[in-house]
């Protein structure tokens, strides 16, 4: 059976999961290029509808999603995913014949139509930049370069890109399936009169209990949550739907630990913008889940309870001061001090070994080194003078030449300087013989 692939490409990035789910009526073989395009294999469905009918039905579907979806979308049907993407994206009827009009940036689409592997993008960008410097701007000019010369000039990846342009190798489609929605809705009676925080939290608890029971059954925890409140739609109500999104710093596994976080946020939000009328329905959706505990609760040790409590307080603190301001640190293997640590993103990140490799580091580090004036006996910083008592041996650091625009390495000579007025300072001298205060040993 002949393969026919339809590609719907959108100019502006958007969440396509709902649209892809709606396209399941046409075919079960669907995949997504994240936020950009939806691919459908319609060759096997030709007995159900023709390609012309399909194009008309897609337009109807797009209209249901909104006017901007119709204006933003381009549809094309070709014999493979790459050709369909190129046709739709660059609005060409036959990609093989239109290579002369395709800019070199389209090589990204040839190489990786499903955006599966971002690690090769920098290499391809570098190749495109070099080709432009050689006054080559179109794909057909790229094809004129002999294949034998590509690996030595641009690396092995360039040969793969060329073969994709010429032969359109069959690529395995990444698996896509509609996201399962875990939600619960509670319809409130008129006499419930849920207009303030306390009754609202009371009803949230009921709904959360059910949701967490479901999650526990699947050994999952909640990482993101959405609460939607539908208010009584009187004529004075300007916003009949209020929504609150929660992105927990650490996944939560129970109602008891989640309620204080909801209380913190809802108290703040409703104080600044109270509910305009009573709530008539409450919907809570678990937007994102993570694997939870599959083990049995330890009878003699409150290990799981302590971990849950820890996750809860971390999430509460992040609600209170901001998610970016509550973190755990992980040490990296970087020469320069300001890059030697970062905020932990995953539990599995391991620390680099710094005890044996690095010289002693100060307990305080400025985020940006501050310029100071140093002479034999004194340090001047922010109109204050400090008397130098001792200098340590020098520690020289150099690096970052790859990141600098001129490929020039940065050099720093670090000293621990003892001063009379306070704790020892950690200063460095750069390649321009300028001194900077970077930290101190408090």
């Amino acid at each position, binding site marked *: 059976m002949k393969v026919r692939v339809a590609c719907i490409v959108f100019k502006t990035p958007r969440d396509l999961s709902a649209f892809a789910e709606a396209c399941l009526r046409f075919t079960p073989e669907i995949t997504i290029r994240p936020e950009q395009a939806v691919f459908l294999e319609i060759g096997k469905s030709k007995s159900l509808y023709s390609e012309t009918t399909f194009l008309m039905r897609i337009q109807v579907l797009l209209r249901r999603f909104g006017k901007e979806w119709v204006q933003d979308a381009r549809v094309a049907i070709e014999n493979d995913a790459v050709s369909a993407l190129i046709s739709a994206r660059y609005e060409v009827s036959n990609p093989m014949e239109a290579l002369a009009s395709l800019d070199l940036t389209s090589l990204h689409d040839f190489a990786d139509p499903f955006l599966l592997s971002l690690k090769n993008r920098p290499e391809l960008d570098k190749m495109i930049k070099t080709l432009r410097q050689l006054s080559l701007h179109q794909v057909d000019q790229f094809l004129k370069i002999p294949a034998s010369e590509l690996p030595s000039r641009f690396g092995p990846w360039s040969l793969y890109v060329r073969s994709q342009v010429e032969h359109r190798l069959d690529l395995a489609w990444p698996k896509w399936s509609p996201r399962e929605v875990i939600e619960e809705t509670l319809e409130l009676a008129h006499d419930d009169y849920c207009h303030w925080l306390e009754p609202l939290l009371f009803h949230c608890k009921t709904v959360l209990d059910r949701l967490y029971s479901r999650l526990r059954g699947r050994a999952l925890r909640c990482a993101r949550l959405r609460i939607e409140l539908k208010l009584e739609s009187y004529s004075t109500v300007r916003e009949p739907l209020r929504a609150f999104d929660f992105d927990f710093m650490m996944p939560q596994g129970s109602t008891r630990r989640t309620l204080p976080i909801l209380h913190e946020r809802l108290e703040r939000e409703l104080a600044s913008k109270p509910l305009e009328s009573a709530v008539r329905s409450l919907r809570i959706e678990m937007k994102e889940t993570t694997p939870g505990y599959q083990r049995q609760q330890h009878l003699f040790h409150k290990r799981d309870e302590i971990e849950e409590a820890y996750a809860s*307080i971390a999430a509460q603190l992040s609600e209170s001061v901001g998610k970016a*301001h*509550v973190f*755990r640190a992980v040490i990296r293997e970087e020469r320069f001090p300001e890059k030697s*640590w970062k905020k932990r993103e995953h539990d599995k990140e391991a620390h680099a070994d710094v*005890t044996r490799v690095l010289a002693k580091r100060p*307990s305080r*580090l400025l985020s940006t080194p501050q310029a100071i004036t140093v002479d034999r006996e004194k340090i001047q910083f922010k109109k204050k003078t400090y008397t130098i008592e001792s200098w340590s041996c020098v520690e020289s650091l150099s690096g970052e030449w790859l990141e600098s625009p001129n490929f020039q390495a940065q050099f720093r000579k670090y000293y621990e300087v003892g001063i009379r007025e306070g704790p020892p300072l950690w200063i460095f001298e750069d390649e321009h013989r300028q001194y900077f205060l970077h930290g101190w040993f408090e």
Partner: protein
Amino acid sequence: MTEKRIQLAELREQIGALLSHSTQEILSSSLLPAGIPRGALVELTGHTRVEWLLAFLREHQELRVCWLEEKFNLFPTALKQRGCNLENFLFVEAGETIFSPLRKAIRSQVFDIVVSPSLFDDVRALKTLQLLSEKANSTLFLLAQKPMHAWQISVQLECLNDLQTRVLKFKTRHEVSTP
């Protein structure tokens, strides 16, 4: 009846004896022979207070620590170098409103050690922190430039060079000791 009264009085005495001799848990430290009491406010002054604290925390790797700062300029790489267990550290950059997150952290009863800059002049604020620490059995370390005259602070230490310690005040729940 008289016998019963005598028995009751003896019982009351025994209970009273038990209560008055109830011990406060102490975290041992090579830097301070008396140790650091749990559920108390400890103020650290001196130029090397952070180094002193890190040396103390190195001896207690299992303790969960919440470290709050107004503006975060602690260097985690140095903490790792000093031998602290970074897995048990949670850092909070609280800005000007540090009291509210500090109170939450202590009240959660999750953290064994809470560290904060000493910014609280208000007696009520200190009293709140002291009661919360006692209830949570968490030790609150306050890092200060100069020692404060506050009865709520149980232990005041001046951290000197080479991790030497000068005890300015040491008070457990049932004893007061000031050299």
